[in-house]
């Protein structure tokens, strides 16, 4: 029986997975947009984004627009590769679970 793949624990968290999936479909997104799409609280969202940033999966840019602070998040190439690998592993595991 072939060995089953490991699921990346950084991505496996539901909110982090949702964030990476959202960021994979846009070039960059504001903190407020991510919050509205995930329905998360500011604190939880900030903490999960920080974990993704520390893993090198997202890049953050802080700037001022019309004197208001704006935080923009962008998925890095490493994050894109990690998400692709995660999806492949997930499909493999699902295939194994259905076949079992």
């Amino acid at each position, binding site marked *: 029986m072939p060995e*089953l793949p*490991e*699921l990346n*624990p950084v991505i*496996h968290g*539901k909110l982090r*997975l*949702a964030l990476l*999936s*959202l*960021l*994979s*479909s*846009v*070039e*960059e*997104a*504001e903190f*407020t*947009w991510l919050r*509205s*799409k995930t*329905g998360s609280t500011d604190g939880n969202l900030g903490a999960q984004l920080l974990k993704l940033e520390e893993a090198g999966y997202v890049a953050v840019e802080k700037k001022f*627009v*019309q004197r208001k602070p*704006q935080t923009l998040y962008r998925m890095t190439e490493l994050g894109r590769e990690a998400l692709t690998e995660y*999806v492949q592993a*997930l*499909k493999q*595991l*699902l295939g194994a*679970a*259905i076949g079992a």
Partner: protein
Amino acid sequence: MQENTSELDLKDRINLIETMIAEGRRKTESWGWTFVLWGLAYYVAIAWSYLGQPALAWPITMIAASILTGVLASRAASKKPETTIGRSMMAIWIGMGVSIFLLMVTLSVSGRMEIHVGIAIVGAMLGTANATSSIILRWKMQFACAVVWWACMIAAQFVSATQAGILFLVALFFCQIVFGIYGMIRESQRNRAVAARQGASHA
């Protein structure tokens, strides 16, 4: 962890990924109001020109509509994520808007506005912009607008100046006002559906 991951949980993760990607790709831009605004601006400029001040009507109306669009769009844009599709749409419509603006102002100020040629150029530009945008967005209704503009452009060349003017006003009504209102209704329905879905997911 792996051994404890149930099939249901795995499917749940796949569904989450698909839902979030679809959310990100969803057309977040709300541009229905710009069609209505510019449709009304054209009507104002045409009516004002008809009343006898074409040299003032077009520049003033076009500048006022441009400023209004810029202010309202910059407010809306700050709440949206940046996407390649969004930027492509903006590029098409800004390019077309600037071209029509310069054309109409120059023709009216120089006094060389000839209705048949004017409608041909404006119809061709609006047809091109609508067609390009509809192909990118895969939006059949917008492609229908492109067809209406092309039909107006062709038909206007074979009728009198008055009839050409009427054709232009009719095309303007359907492709700017009606299409813009339709776009706004769709956007509002979509926003309500998203709000309902978010409410359900928090319940």
